[in-house]
């Protein structure tokens, strides 16, 4: 603990790139440690993910029974089961729901302390979020996957590139989700209270992200428009389609490219919104 703090204090003595990389790494580590203290909540959350996994998996498998050829949306039953269970594992990793830390700090005026720090808030919150996500990947990703594998036949990846592509896709999804949540929270700079935008975000990201049902069940033109016009399918649908090998190798990689495009765009938007906000910000309260 004290050794880590010391490395922050000495950053000015090493090169500028190394110093910012060190700072970023320390922030990631602190995000990780913060979440590792909530052990019981981790168990409770996994239990709930598993129950919802059963609900969704049974419904989609019953749907496959009812469709001629048993391939609704182009997924066979094993791919559907993989879609559901990997999705339940990824929910906490991507972290769609329940982040209002930034908007609360803006509302209370605590954001002033963040602005005094030498690291931009977008960077420091991104680092903390990557720490949170890596903790979730180690603790929350496995249990639903194990439960799913015990009770349902899952689709195992058949291509060598699927697993590395999936990991890349997950990292990009975490970054995109963070950027979106940052922008949504940052509306509090203008509205004071971001509960409304957060509600809309929770709503849109769940259903249009592919959590409620695979978006491939919707008409093709609509799915493509969603994919290219909004970052939402890049949150869950993309990594899940990659791991379920829903498409050929080319399109599989293409999904990750689309994600990369959204990651850059959303982060740039977050940085832009933050700069605009700083120009007009009047810190609340005394």
């Amino acid at each position: 603990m004290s050794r880590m703090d010391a490395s922050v204090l000495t950053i000015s003595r090493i090169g500028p790139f190394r110093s910012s990389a060190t700072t970023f790494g320390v922030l990631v580590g602190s995000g990780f440690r913060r979440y590792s203290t909530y052990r019981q909540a981790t168990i409770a959350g996994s239990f709930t993910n598993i129950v919802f996994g059963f609900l969704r998996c049974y419904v989609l498998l019953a749907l496959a029974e009812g469709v001629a050829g048993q391939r609704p949306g182009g997924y066979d039953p094993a791919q559907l089961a993989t879609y559901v269970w990997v999705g339940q594992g990824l929910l906490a990793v991507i972290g769609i729901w329940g982040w209002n830390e930034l908007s609360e700090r803006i509302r209370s005026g605590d954001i002033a302390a963040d602005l005094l720090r030498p690291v931009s808030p977008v960077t420091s919150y991104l680092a903390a979020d990557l720490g949170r996500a890596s903790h979730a990947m180690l603790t929350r990703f496995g249990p639903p996957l194990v439960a799913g594998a015990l009770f349902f036949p899952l689709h195992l990846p058949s291509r060598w590139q699927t697993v590395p592509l999936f990991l890349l896709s997950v990292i990009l999804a975490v970054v995109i989700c963070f950027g979106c949540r940052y922008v949504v929270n940052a509306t509090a700079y203008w509205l004071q209270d971001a509960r409304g935008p957060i509600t809309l975000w929770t709503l849109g990201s769940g259903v249009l992200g592919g959590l409620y049902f695979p978006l491939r069940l919707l008409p093709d033109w609509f799915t493509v428009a969603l994919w290219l016009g909004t970052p939402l399918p890049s949150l869950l649908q993309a990594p899940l389609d990659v791991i379920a090998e829903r498409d050929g190798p080319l399109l599989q990689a293409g999904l990750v490219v689309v994600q990369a495009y959204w990651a850059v765009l959303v982060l740039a938007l977050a940085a832009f919104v933050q700069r605009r906000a700083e120009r007009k910000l009047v810190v609340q309260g005394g």
Partner: protein
Amino acid sequence: MGELRAYRALFGAQARSVLMYRTSFLVELLGNMGATVFDVLTVLVLFRAAPQVGGFTLAEAVLTVGLSSAGFALADMLVGNVDRLKVYVRAGTLDAVLVRPLPALPQLLLMDLPLRKALRVVFGFVVLGGALAINDIDWTPARIALVAVTPLAAAAFFGSIFVISATMAFWWVDSGEIGAAFTYGGRDFTSYPITVYGPWFRGLFAYTLGFAFVAYQPALALLGRTDPLGLPALAGYLSPLVALPAVIIAAGVWRTGIRHYRSTGS
């Protein structure tokens, strides 16, 4: 009389505080309705993809989801916010509630009554109305009574589940999302004909916990269909008889929990 005024004051304070930020409140109101809209849309999307799912058609499924969401939305608005209990226990706010000379549960519910969920209830009943219109129902006095009672019994049942899950916080503050598996999980479970689930999972949720009688069995009784899972037609009329013990158990668990509660002392 004085009690009533006290409750009104609690509710008034809550209403004023949410109306402070009007835009946010309006967006929340619409957003919350949107959540139920999407839940129903999900069922539509799935049933549109296949002629039948679990042996039921789209129109029949809409009836199940209509009964379930009308009941759930009602319970969620009136009682759902009790799941904030764990926050109150952790922060010690519950002490303030307990020292007042009023029962704790109604106070908690009124302090936090989520007005933003009002449109949800309206939408739930609209879906139910639509479902009754598109299905060819042979109306008898018994079925009319059934339509009137089922959403209320469903609301009482879901409300009990909300209270029981929230009460866990008295023993386990970090119970986190476990309650959601049974409250929101119960809503999702009852949104589909229960024939879609695997046998042991169905046995647990539908018959052991009683969720079968919330929407699925009443829907069968309204449609005049025999249960492919073998329960007699009478089962459709049992929802009040299942809700009643649920309410009694919830009240008992709540009382035990309140007695067990030791303040954090801070």
